[in-house]
């Protein structure tokens, strides 16, 4: 599968390396080239410097045609914006956003995004280790609802567009 990951912190770097090692096509983005030092020297994927909340940057990183998008920056809102761009503009089938604020995570799960946040993951892992009751150790929280029509739209490159399907966002002139 083809995966695009934004945020080359410890989690992003480890995830990218693991996926690349098992033969997946991986591209990881970060605004800082220094962040790429976390990747091993023999990293088999691609590292691209750029800001993942910029649609053009995501397009250059090959998001159209990706199977998975993971937003792992330190900003909940940035992750939420990128994840929705990935879903709405690039029609990526599986999108995961890190949202550390549990309230926001729940809200966006209801809006159709898969979310994960260290607050609940760590809390539940510790409670579980201590033998305290937990709702069940949860990792990625799958979408819980669709109050909002977050249906996938055809990507600008999609052949569906030529057959009169719902249009994606207008491609700005000069952007292909």
């Amino acid at each position, binding site marked *: 599968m083809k995966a695009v990951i934004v945020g080359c912190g410890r989690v992003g770097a480890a995830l990218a390396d693991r996926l690349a090692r098992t033969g997946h096509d991986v591209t990881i983005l970060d605004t800082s080239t220094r962040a790429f030092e976390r990747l091993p020297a023999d990293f088999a994927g691609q590292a691209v410097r750029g800001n993942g909340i910029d649609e053009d940057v995501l397009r250059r990183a090959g998001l159209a045609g990706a199977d998975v998008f993971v937003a792992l920056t330190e900003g909940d*809102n940035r992750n*939420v914006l990128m994840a*929705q761009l990935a879903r*709405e503009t690039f029609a990526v089938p599986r999108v995961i956003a890190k949202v550390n604020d549990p309230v926001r995570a729940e*809200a966006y799960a209801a809006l159709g995004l898969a979310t994960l946040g260290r607050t609940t993951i760590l809390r539940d892992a510790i409670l579980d280790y201590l033998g305290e009751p937990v709702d069940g150790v949860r990792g990625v929280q799958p979408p819980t609802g669709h*109050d909002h029509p977050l249906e996938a739209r055809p990507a600008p490159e999609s052949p569906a567009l030529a057959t009169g399907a719902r249009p994606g966002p207008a491609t700005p002139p000069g952007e292909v």
Partner: protein
Amino acid sequence: MYIIVVGGGKVGYYLTKELLQAGHEVVLLEKHPPRAAQIADELGSIVLNLDGCEGQSLARAGAKRADIVAAVTGDDEDNLVVCQMAKHHFSVPRAIARVNNPKNEELFRHLGVDEIISPTRTILGAIEQDIPVHELLHLAELEGGDLEVIEAQIEAGSPAVGRRSREITLPDGCSLFILIRDEVAQPIRPETIFQAGDKVIAITRTECEAALREELIGTAATAR
């Protein structure tokens, strides 16, 4: 009218002041404590030191009975989250977002933001009124600068559209060289008919550039 403004930068500050003067009920949310304190000194208790992206902050600001939420921080992602929380969790009738990257406008609209204000787009529009939309693009100089290789973009409305290459009167010293259509380069023959969207690579003497521009791009392209 009850209005919640999120973001106490220059835009949020002046917006709040104007709304208060117009007699509206306004609350301003600003997450940075020093800035919140600074505005509160002047505007009073309507300034709350809260992060408007948090659901709890919007609840404390009374989002449930708000008529409008205006998210005017400098960060597009924060403005989007404020508007989505306002619409989907508090059923605020009208959510307004400031958008800095014009490319985000479409996404915000699709995600249910009612009104999108893009200062970048507005300024861009003002600038584009004053400059020609398309100029000749200089690609290279030849013969010590006497000759130039240029690219002209043919738009709808250009005098060249629908005409054959041989029907276009070119100044002496100009020759049309290659046509790029749908990303494919092809030679320009006398029978080639130009279409909107074509790019023409031409060689011209420097002094003939204006005449060539008139033939390929036209004078009307300078939108005023």
